[in-house]
């Protein structure tokens, strides 16, 4: 009689995602009657905070939106502002921004693969339990994450935030000897990253193909990070400035993060979408590692996201090595910027997908209006659509516990970063005799 049962699944606080979210599913007569991914972090007010601020303050301020991807927020912001002021970053600035972004991808993806996603596929409740049986794999993940962080620190003005970034470039250039020391460690880790790809490819991932539209940046000759046109698997190919003509953001009652649709349809951003649309931009050794997994890309299976993240860790490490091998101390770490009034757009590939910014400035470069569209809000509609389909495919007759686990696993494929504004240590005080 399982088909006729009424099931309500409430996951009041989703574990192993960044931020505060919940999931409600109601199943009636063997069908999903209602499904809501509820995001109840207080709405972020950063767009308003930025109004009236000087353009120079923007990179520091937007870095605070996310503790995991501050570089992404800085990159979209500086590109948008430079497009208003007509500033053209030097080749050195362009290369070093890419290195910085490599660091963030490595850090964010390594964390997600090992500590948030892998326990799902190996049958553990959390990474700590998994680490007892897979200590070498987890240590390898921590090393790759640590190297990503070391790249970011190379450019950081302070240890806590990557404030080394400014409109026009960087506040200072890293010393040659610091670059050389880090480069040795990065080179030595290349086999680790290649092994990581093979490991994720060997996981027993569910098979669940779905049709969805992938959206990512595309650059004429690079795997996309800071520059490119916005393209989709359905043939979209537009300038970053044309985003608002095609994508629509709107509020839904059950979430404090805006939903977003492309031509009124849900779409996917993030590592799997990026890889699906940019396979021909990977260097040879990374392509070889991908082919060795035996998984065919482009992939329509969202569970392949963990493999896409591993591929991007390997790519980012290889790219950082390539760019730092040619490192030369520059005559200036930034180009001059002359502010004036205008409207500008920036879109870069955050670890979780395209992050779109729009700014309006006055003639002194003060921010009049800011708009920020983060990747997780863009993926929300797709996550809900995916949950309906994948739970149906999984079988609604499964136990509540199995349905809850599958739903959480599906959500984690997207690595949602709902918000990470604070990190208070929650303590339960007990008295010991």
């Amino acid at each position, binding site marked *: 009689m399982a088909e006729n049962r009424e099931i309500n699944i409430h996951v009041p606080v989703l574990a192993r995602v960044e931020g505060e979210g919940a999931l409600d599913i109601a199943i009636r007569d063997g069908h999903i009657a209602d499904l809501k991914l509820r995001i109840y972090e207080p709405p972020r007010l950063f767009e308003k905070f930025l109004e009236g601020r000087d353009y120079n303050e923007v990179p520091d301020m937007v870095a605070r939106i996310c503790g995991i991807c501050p570089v992404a927020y800085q990159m979209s912001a500086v590109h948008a502002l430079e497009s208003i002021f007509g500033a053209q970053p030097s080749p050195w600035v362009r290369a070093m921004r890419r290195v910085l972004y490599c660091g963030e991808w490595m850090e964010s993806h390594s964390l997600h693969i090992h500590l948030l996603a892998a326990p799902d596929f190996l049958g553990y409740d959390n990474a700590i339990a998994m*680490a007892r049986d897979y200590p070498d794999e987890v240590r390898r993940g921590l090393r790759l994450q*640590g190297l990503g962080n070391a790249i970011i620190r190379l450019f950081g003005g302070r240890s*806590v935030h990557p404030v080394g970034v400014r409109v026009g470039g960087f506040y200072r250039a890293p010393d040659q000897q610091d670059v050389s020391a880090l480069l040795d460690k990065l080179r030595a880790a290349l086999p680790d990253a290649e092994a990581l790809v093979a490991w994720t490819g060997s996981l027993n991932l569910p098979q669940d193909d779905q049709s969805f539209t992938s959206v990512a940046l595309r650059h004429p000759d690079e795997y996309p990070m800071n520059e490119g046109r916005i393209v989709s698997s359905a043939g979209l190919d537009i300038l970053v400035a044309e985003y608002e003509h095609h994508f629509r953001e709107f509020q839904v009652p059950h979430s404090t993060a805006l939903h977003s649709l492309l031509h009124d349809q849900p779409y996917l951003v993030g590592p799997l979408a990026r890889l699906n649309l940019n396979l021909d931009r990977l260097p040879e050794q990374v392509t070889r590692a991908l082919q060795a997994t035996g998984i065919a890309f482009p992939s329509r299976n969202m569970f392949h996201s963990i493999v896409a993240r591993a591929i991007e860790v390997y790519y980012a490490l290889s790219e950082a090595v390539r760019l730092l091998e040619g490192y030369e101390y520059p005559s200036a770490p930034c180009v001059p910027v002359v502010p004036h009034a205008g409207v500008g757009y920036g879109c870069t590939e955050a670890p979780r997908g395209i992050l779109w910014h729009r700014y309006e400035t006055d003639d002194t470069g003060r921010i009049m209006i800011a708009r920020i569209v983060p990747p997780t809000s863009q993926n929300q509609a797709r996550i809900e659509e995916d949950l309906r389909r994948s739970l149906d495919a999984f079988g609604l007759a499964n136990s509540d516990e199995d349905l809850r686990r599958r739903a959480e696993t599906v959500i984690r494929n997207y690595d949602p970063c709902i918000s990470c*504004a604070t990190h208070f240590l929650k303590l339960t005080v007990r008295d010991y005799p």
Partner: protein
Amino acid sequence: MIPIRIIGIGSPFGDDRLGWEAAEAVRRSGLLGHFPQGLVSVQCCDRPASGLLMLMEGASHVILIDAMRSGAVPGTVRRLQDEEIEMEAALLSSHGFGVAESLALGRTLGMLPARLVLYGVEVCNLDQCDTLAPETVGALPMLVERIKEELLPEG
């Protein structure tokens, strides 16, 4: 490899800056002058998740300073050592991977320093502002004093 490390954990939001401000206060206190160069370091980190383990790598004695919410009077300082930290800190925080999870992972993998101490300071103000609440600021001198006693027991 610096054997003794003091690490302030925080984020830019209101009282969550506590760890950073405390690390700065330790640096200003002249405490480091009591030790040969290269023996003790002070650093800050922003919501490090498991990156905390790499920050502690190779150290023999680590003192962590973090904002704490336990329902105590704001400004209260608590000291926890070794296993106590993971036992008392919520193990499944909704924020992905926190300090407690990182330390539990580090223990499983044998990556923790021989001596690990956490000073938690009860905080109250979670605003998006750049300053600490007066109650939290008031706790800093006592916190610095306790860290001094910890590292210079002979006074």
